[in-house]
């Protein structure tokens, strides 16, 4: 619990307590609790179907949990009124897995949109701010292209630019560097660290990529089948004695015990 002691003087920006969620009758998240402190890069790691993207959706107040509480920037998002959520959302940025750029708008219009909706700045200023953010993500000069004309890596970078255009206190990213070639992925990891250091942003990243997670995380959690296996710094996670964590870290395949009778049953469909 050394980490808790070190962090106790920093404010908590995201606090999830005993979160339980269901999809239909299936339990997706089971008693998940975590804290994200100001100014850190917090990584939620887990395999496919571990519930990590679901956890993100709940933190973003896109879904209502079965039980448990979620506080973001000091506000209980489960019980917030729409007007309170509206104010809260102006202070956070989100980049989705697919980028989720609006396909009917150019890259520049996409990035300007939050400014247009939430500020009274004049168009010229907004355009400059959008170009500034494009510059930060290394996409200067692409503002007039349509999202369909961009490659996967560019889409993710443009989505990051849109997520940070309002200079949010809190940035969420769903798999920002997955599915990209190693060089682009590394560049995005660098970018996330730069956002933390240069702009003082608190960043919450969901990823299944070990390498990227270890590179950017100040602290991380490992999620498996909806349960938190371990929480801590990169070192603490690496040295975890949890067998499942080690299995995930060392990419070991599940050992399947062979039950001949069940196998036959599965094959015959009986």
């Amino acid at each position, binding site marked *: 619990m050394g980490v808790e002691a070190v962090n106790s003087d920093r404010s908590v920006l995201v606090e999830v307590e005993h979160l339980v969620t269901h999809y239909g009758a299936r339990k997706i998240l089971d008693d998940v609790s975590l804290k994200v402190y100001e100014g850190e890069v917090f990584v939620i790691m887990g395999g496919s179907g571990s519930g990590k993207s679901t956890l993100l959706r709940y933190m973003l107040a*896109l879904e209502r949990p079965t039980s448990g509480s979620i506080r973001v920037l000091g506000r209980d998002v489960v019980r917030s009124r729409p007007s309170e959520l509206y104010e809260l959302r102006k202070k956070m940025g*989100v980049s989705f897995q697919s980028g989720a750029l*609006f396909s009917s708008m150019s890259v520049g219009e996409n990035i300007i949109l939050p400014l247009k909706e939430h500020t009274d700045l004049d168009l010229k200023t907004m355009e400059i701010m959008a170009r500034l953010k494009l510059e930060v993500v290394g996409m200067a000069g692409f503002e007039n292209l349509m999202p369909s004309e961009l490659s996967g890596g560019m889409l993710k970078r443009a989505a990051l630019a849109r997520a940070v255009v309002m200079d949010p206190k809190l940035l969420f990213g769903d798999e920002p560097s997955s599915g990209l070639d190693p060089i682009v992925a590394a560049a995005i990891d660098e970018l996330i660290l730069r956002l933390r250091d240069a702009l003082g942003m608190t960043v919450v990243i969901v990823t299944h990529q070990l390498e990227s997670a270890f590179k950017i995380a100040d602290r991380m959690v490992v999620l498996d089948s909806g349960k938190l296996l371990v929480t801590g710094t990169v070192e603490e996670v690496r040295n975890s004695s949890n067998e499942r964590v080690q299995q995930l870290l060392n990419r070991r395949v599940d050992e399947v015990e062979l039950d001949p009778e069940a196998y036959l049953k599965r094959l015959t469909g009986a």
Partner: protein
Amino acid sequence: MPAEGGQQALNGAARRALDAVERTGRACVDSISAFGYGAALFAESFFWIFRGRSIRQPVRLTMIFEEMMQIGIVAIPIVTVLSLTIGVMLAIQGIYTLSLFGAESRVTIGIALSVTREFSPLITGILVAGRSGSALAARLGTMSINQEIDALRVMGINPVRFLVVPPLVAMMVMLPALSFLSDLVALFGAGVYVSLDLGMSLPAYSDRVIEVLTVNDLLHGLGKSMIFAVLITLVAVVNGAGVTGGAEGVGRVTTRSVVQSIAAIVITDMLFVFVVTR
């Protein structure tokens, strides 16, 4: 053994019957909840139209104008062609029918009333449902799958205000407008045929039409158009927002949206006429 087999067969039949009941029940619940969702969307849309500006989340006029362009202005050529054709067709059928009684010259009454009260709103409604309703459902479906609607929500941009209100308002303005255009073109088309076939001059024809038509007849048609506009938009939005299953799902909801909105238009038309005309 035979007894057991019989038991199993019975069980199978009972299970199938139970399944059918369950499916019917589910379908009922689903359609009731879709109705409720549509009604809630409609109410929320009015909230944004009237209260949005005061809470600094206005509905953008430029977006409404863009939608009006797409829904209305771009549809003018096809509405014109269809209306002209319908007008001529009505004239032919009307003259043929009335010739059985030797009353061809009374054809203008039938044309004037059926065009303004029925054919124009119905044809433009069906056309716009196929053109713009389907496009709206496909757009919302694609956005939903691409997480664009989630992106709007987490940006603090209400999707109803941003995606539903502009097409709804545009539809409610443009559909009656198109319907009125259709009135004029169809009556003109019918007039041309009548003047050629019966030797009635166009001015005489138009005098007759104006004599027969009342403001009420026009409003009857335009009022229906307004209702159709709401139906088309809400059906498209409910279907588009409820998309599941990727690109194939988008295709499915687009088709379903067109079929449902045309069905809704025709059924509502009948109900409207029943209530208003009797």
